[in-house]
């Protein structure tokens, strides 16, 4: 059960980094914590054998999204998050860990006390098709959707990030 331990650790890292990202006063720290969540998640995926999604998670989420954030923060840096704002932010989220700990204990207690269990619905007799075939042949509608999503993203960048004053 070494595997399971690693998974649990990954998830705990995700949780801690996520809460830190939420509570952090500095936007950059938030972004970096978010990237750490992504990294932990991709490690988790890697351990359970979901290689493709792990790679995507690592490259896109912890890479691209962080880049987007940091550039957005730098674009809007000047008056952002003054000291008072940060103090305010801190006071708003001071209670969050406490709430989370209480909620976590409550949830775990509820699960354990009720004997709640998640039944595996896996069909052992059926071997699953390889990811390549599933992705390219079975999820063709999704792929079409992805292409269109990328198209929207392109148009959004063109429309929203274009310099003011220029007309297209």
């Amino acid at each position: 059960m070494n595997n399971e331990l690693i998974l649990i650790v990954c998830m705990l890292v995700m949780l801690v980094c996520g809460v830190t990202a939420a509570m952090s006063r500095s936007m950059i720290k938030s972004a970096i914590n978010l990237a750490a969540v992504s990294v932990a998640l991709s490690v988790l995926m890697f351990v359970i054998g979901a290689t493709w999604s792990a790679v995507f998670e690592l490259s896109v989420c912890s890479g691209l999204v962080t880049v987007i954030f940091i550039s957005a923060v730098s674009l809007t840096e000047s008056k952002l998050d003054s000291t008072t704002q940060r103090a305010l932010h801190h006071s708003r989220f001071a209670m969050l860990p406490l709430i989370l700990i209480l909620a976590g204990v409550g949830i775990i207690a509820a699960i354990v006390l009720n004997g709640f269990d998640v039944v595996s619905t896996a069909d052992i007799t059926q071997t699953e098709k390889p990811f390549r075939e599933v992705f390219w042949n079975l999820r063709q509608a999704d792929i079409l959707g992805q292409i269109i999503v990328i198209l929207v993203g392109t148009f959004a960048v063109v429309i929203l990030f274009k310099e003011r004053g220029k007309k297209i």
Partner: protein
Amino acid sequence: MSPFTIVALTAALLLIFSGLYLLLKTHNMLRIIIAIEIVMKAITLLLVFAGLMNGKMALTQAFIITVILVEVVVAVVAAGVAINLYRHNGDMEISRLNKLNG
């Protein structure tokens, strides 16, 4: 009842909760995007958990990849809108978004 199940469900729920809490409490538009990202991470975790439970890991991976793509584009659009709003308002304060009423 494996500890993995307990931790996975609890971690996902707590992450979603803290993401929504941030969404509800923050005054900063970029933090809203961070909150959305946190929630999405939790959901990805849930998806992985679901794939583990029903043994359809390949399908789950396809889902996860699509979700990641969508999530990134949402983040891009949100950042674009937020930056434009910053240009209008001069800060990222969300309570400035009150021009629409009537």
